[in-house]
């Protein structure tokens, strides 16, 4: 196991300079999720209009993997329909299972592929994406 395989430069950049960190106004879809085994926590907010994610923001606390994943995810889903966003979440899950996956429109996400070799850290990377799935569900109902 090589540390550089896990902690790629792109990941550390998102950790150090998080994109979309913050909150949206109250009428956005809000999801709180924590990882009970480790204490990582995310609050994800989605501004959904006509079935499209206009904006996604998050706050939370966690390791470099969980927070960089949240940073990338909120960037990647912006402007996507709920179905497209769900498709990204599925793709991300496949990558965590070690399948070769390409994110043509948002290549940063591929930097997280190394996490699949560190089974204990997969739940860190998927926290934000699980929040997204819940948010999509809630967005569909609203």
């Amino acid at each position, binding site marked *: *196991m*090589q*540390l550089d395989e*896990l*902690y790629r*430069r792109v990941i*550390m950049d998102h*950790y*150090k300079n998080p994109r979309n960190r913050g909150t949206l106004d109250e009428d956005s879809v809000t999801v709180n999720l924590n990882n009970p*085994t*480790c*204490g*990582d*926590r995310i609050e994800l907010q989605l501004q959904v209009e006509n079935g499209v994610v206009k904006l996604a923001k998050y706050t939370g*606390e*966690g*390791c*470099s*993997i969980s927070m960089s994943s949240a940073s990338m995810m909120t960037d990647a889903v912006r402007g996507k329909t709920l179905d497209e966003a769900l498709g990204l979440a599925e793709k991300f899950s496949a990558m965590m299972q070690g399948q070769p996956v390409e994110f043509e429109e948002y290549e940063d996400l591929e930097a997280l592929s190394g996490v699949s070799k*560190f089974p*204990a*850290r997969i739940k*860190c990377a998927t926290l934000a994406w699980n929040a997204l799935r819940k948010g999509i569900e809630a967005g569909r109902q609203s």
Partner: protein
Amino acid sequence: MNPQDLRKAFPILNQQVNGHPLVYLDNAASSQKPRSVIDAIVRYYEHDNANVHRGVHTLASRATDAYEGARAKVARFLNAASEREIVFTRGTTSALNIVARSYARAVLREGDEIVLTPMEHHANLIPWQQAAKATGAVLRYIPMQPDGTIRLADVEATLTDRTKIVSVTHVSNVLGVVNPVKEIAALAHKCGAVMVVDGAQSAPHMKVDVRDIDCDFFAFSGHKMCGPTGIGALYGKLELLEKMEPVEYGGEMIEHVDYYDATWKESPWRFEGGTPIIAGAVGLAAAIDFLTDIGMEAIERHSTELARYAYDRLSAIEGITLYGPRERAGLVTFNLEGVHPHDVATVLDTEGVAIRAGHHCCQPLMRKLDVTATARASFYLYNTEEDVERLVAALIKAKEFFGHAIG
């Protein structure tokens, strides 16, 4: 005792992890098992295995003797007055749940108080929350000093004549604090409360004498003290156990059954419904033999000295925050500035050093310490100062790696 020699008794320690000799520093979560414990379990399954208490054949007698012999061994290990005061359980959690479900719910009335400390493991917190909800009792907390210690004056000030149960961890799995349980028990008894001790982190590391502490209940787990997982015990004073209702019903625990009602065996068997954890008890007995051969006093001295050594070595690293007092049981809990404990633990793992990162089943305490998670290195009889040096070297590497990556 010589940790280098003892190490050889643990087959699992003789391996490389990620290209480095394994340094196992997650003993507060679960300890490793010596060859003698592994062999005892194998021997039991190869020679003596049968169900206990109900067969007339030879293997059934051997299995029963092994199981009840293990109970007697646990009783001696804790200096209980009788083996009838030892209930085998899955571990500390299920032992504490028996007290909270059976004793507590029978005794507690609305407005009664259960007194805990802010450093309790979820296993010694949630069962009491639920007992309080079910009975209308209230939870009260003994204040904690900034270094994590408890002052007896604060215990005295917290207890009232409504206090019915005081439940305190003997050794904190986060702070390493050793609580004055004997003195707290005396104060609890003065106001008519029972004293429950969570011994998950003390039984593996020090001589425990339940009669000297004069606690009413004491719970511990086998797997943290060289025994197998899935076995632990609840010590309870016999006069209390005898009055308590079972929490699990079924075979093994009954005296007389008809179609509409049943009566229970006496304690401790009434608390052991179903086929018990026989091989686990055999393994636990072998673990107790292993530990007592070394001597609990020697083990305590070793773990404590190693923890103090680690505390001082880690204190010298810039950017490390340590939690809890310097005088402590065998573990150190810390954070490296700017690096999440998960990331620390991953870097250490690539260096072959196994530590724990997370909230250590103490979420309220984490919030009190104003952290979301911490890293913890916990020691046992096979750890050495060289292991601490490997920890230090790996931490410096983590610091450099993230300093560079984040910088």
